């Protein structure tokens, strides 16, 4: 409990100075949790089989640090590609053009419908299966340009492409849920101003959808951080999990090296969570503020702290959804997206 600062308070005669409710349960739970945590810590520290000296020795090993670099690069590169693709796919999915809708549907169906491990194996085998890429007239032998596949599709490129294309299918559904959660009145108002579909998407709908999209995308990014350990299927052998595995196999000490990997994954996850909260703040602009200075005339809580981002229903209209309802809808959509993600 922080002490109340006197100067920040209005001068109220007979200010209530009541005794607070005792939070006995909180105190008891705190003691129990603290005890359990101590026991766990003692177990972790004193258990000789965890070999903390080995953990410490390899925590900053050159190969491990190198592995972290590759893991981060794989995560960031594949997520960036996936985000761009997914926005494209989501916009295509709601396009008036039936061909674009179909392509988007097929893409999501295919990349969500097959295991990412298998996809990575195939990306690794791509240059064996299709040794040469060429540009020419289809079904003839006329060729303008061609290239050896293995020169472009290195293991790292195959790994990034494999991860990105798979992820784009999941993200596309998240983006679509975000787009659909934006109130239709927003697009109507934009249309009425003479804006066209592409512009409305870019300037009005997507910025508002981002607010809903960012938390699940953060979730997916953290998931991707660990999915990168699957790129050994390509095979790509420089990322964190593979690097620690290699050391473990060399010195016959798997447990401490797993701990090394865990520690680093946790560190990166913490950083990613921090970045996510910054992003959420950025895209929450205009939604978080309460009434700062609405002026003397206005007492109506016109702001919709929650919900679709339409200029919210005002108190006492009874028309349109209440902010609570809209918020629930948003949460529901978000949950559905998460379920599709989890069921993969």
């Amino acid at each position, binding site marked *: 409990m922080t002490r109340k600062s006197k100067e920040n308070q209005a001068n109220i005669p007979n200010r209530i100075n009541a005794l607070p409710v005792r939070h006995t349960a909180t105190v008891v739970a705190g003691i129990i949790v603290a005890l359990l945590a101590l026991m766990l810590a003692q177990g972790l520290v004193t258990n000789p089989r965890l070999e903390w000296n080995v953990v410490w020795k390899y925590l900053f090993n050159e190969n491990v640090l190198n592995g972290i670099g590759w893991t981060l690069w794989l995560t960031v590169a594949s997520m960036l590609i996936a985000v761009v693709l997914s926005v494209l796919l989501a916009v295509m999915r709601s396009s008036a053009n039936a061909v674009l809708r179909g392509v988007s549907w097929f893409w999501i169906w295919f990349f969500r419908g097959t295991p990412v491990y298998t996809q990575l194996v195939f990306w690794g085998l791509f240059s064996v299966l299709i040794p040469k890429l060429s540009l020419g007239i289809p079904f003839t032998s006329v060729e303008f340009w061609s290239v050896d596949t293995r020169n472009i599709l290195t293991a790292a490129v195959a790994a990034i492409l494999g991860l990105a294309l798979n992820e784009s299918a999941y993200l596309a559904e998240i983006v679509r849920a975000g787009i659909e959660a934006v109130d239709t009145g927003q697009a109507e108002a*934009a249309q009425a101003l*003479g804006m066209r579909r592409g512009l409305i998407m870019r300037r009005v709908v997507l910025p508002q959808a981002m607010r809903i999209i960012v938390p699940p995308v953060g979730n997916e990014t953290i998931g991707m951080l660990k999915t990168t350990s699957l790129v050994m299927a390509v095979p790509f052998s420089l990322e964190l999990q593979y690097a620690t595995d290699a050391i473990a196999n060399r010195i016959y000490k798997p447990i401490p090296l797993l701990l090394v990997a865990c520690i680093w994954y946790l560190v990166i996850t913490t950083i990613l969570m921090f970045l996510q909260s910054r992003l959420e703040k950025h895209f929450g602009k205009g939604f978080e503020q309460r009434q700062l200075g609405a*002026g003397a005339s206005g007492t109506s809580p016109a*702001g919709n702290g929650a919900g679709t981002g*339409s200029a*919210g229903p005002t108190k006492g209209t009874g028309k349109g959804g209440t902010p609570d309802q809209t918020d629930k809808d948003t949460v529901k959509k978000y949950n559905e997206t998460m379920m599709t993600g989890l069921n993969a």
Partner: protein
Amino acid sequence: MSTHGNTENMQNSSRDTVRPSAPAGAHSGVPAVAIKDVHKAFGALHVLKGINLTVNPGTVTVILGPSGSGKSTLLRLINQLETLSGGEIDVDGEMVGYRHVERGGQDRLQELTEKEIAAQREKLGMVFQRFNLFPHMTALQNVMEAPVHVAGVSKAEAKARAEKELARVGLADRAEHYPAELSGGQQQRVAIARALAMDPEIMLFDEPTSALDPELVGEVLGVMRSLADGGMTMMVVTHEIGFAREVADQVVFIDGGVVVEAGGPEIIDNPTEQRFKDFLAHVL
């Protein structure tokens, strides 16, 4: 893009236009909006059943009617937020949404492209019941959005114009506020400023005060009244009978998808049709 030119036109016209004292019909030339035998159905639901209505430039038309009578649908048809099922709407003498073409010796209607529709909409400003301000932009950014990204006006010019429009609706000091920080009445006034910044020839108001707390209705009606006094052509769907009586040049009562009664504002005090009498008895 010619918004700059339009700006001057509009200012000139608002200054020079003498408020028409005679009701509709006294004007020569092209009507601002001509609605001809308009039908609209949503599936099996026949909402508008042959509406005829003419709005002359510089006049205010107030559309009254019970909920579900189709009056909002009529406004949305003019702005092509809904597509016509039958009939024709002309804005400034130009048919909305379609073009006549000849196919196999027959006169057919060709749908306009999205680009052409967007261009037609630029003549019309619209204000919605639920404001529909862009919540991720400040009041100023809301007003600047279309001039910059639709009309291609420079940011500096658009900002100056936006500040002027916000001042016109009495919100110069709220430019940097997000919609969530404004009262309902203030939000609606920003929405009006946003529409005005595109120099519309006609303003459509779809129940602009229905979502407002009673004490905030006056400020929005005040802005609308000053617009009308400036000579703006307006079509207003509203339940504010007082506003209709004082500001309207033409009052139209719609019920069951047809125009039941239309005339000057005096028909509010001397209705002839029973359905209009019943409606007025309810709302007055």
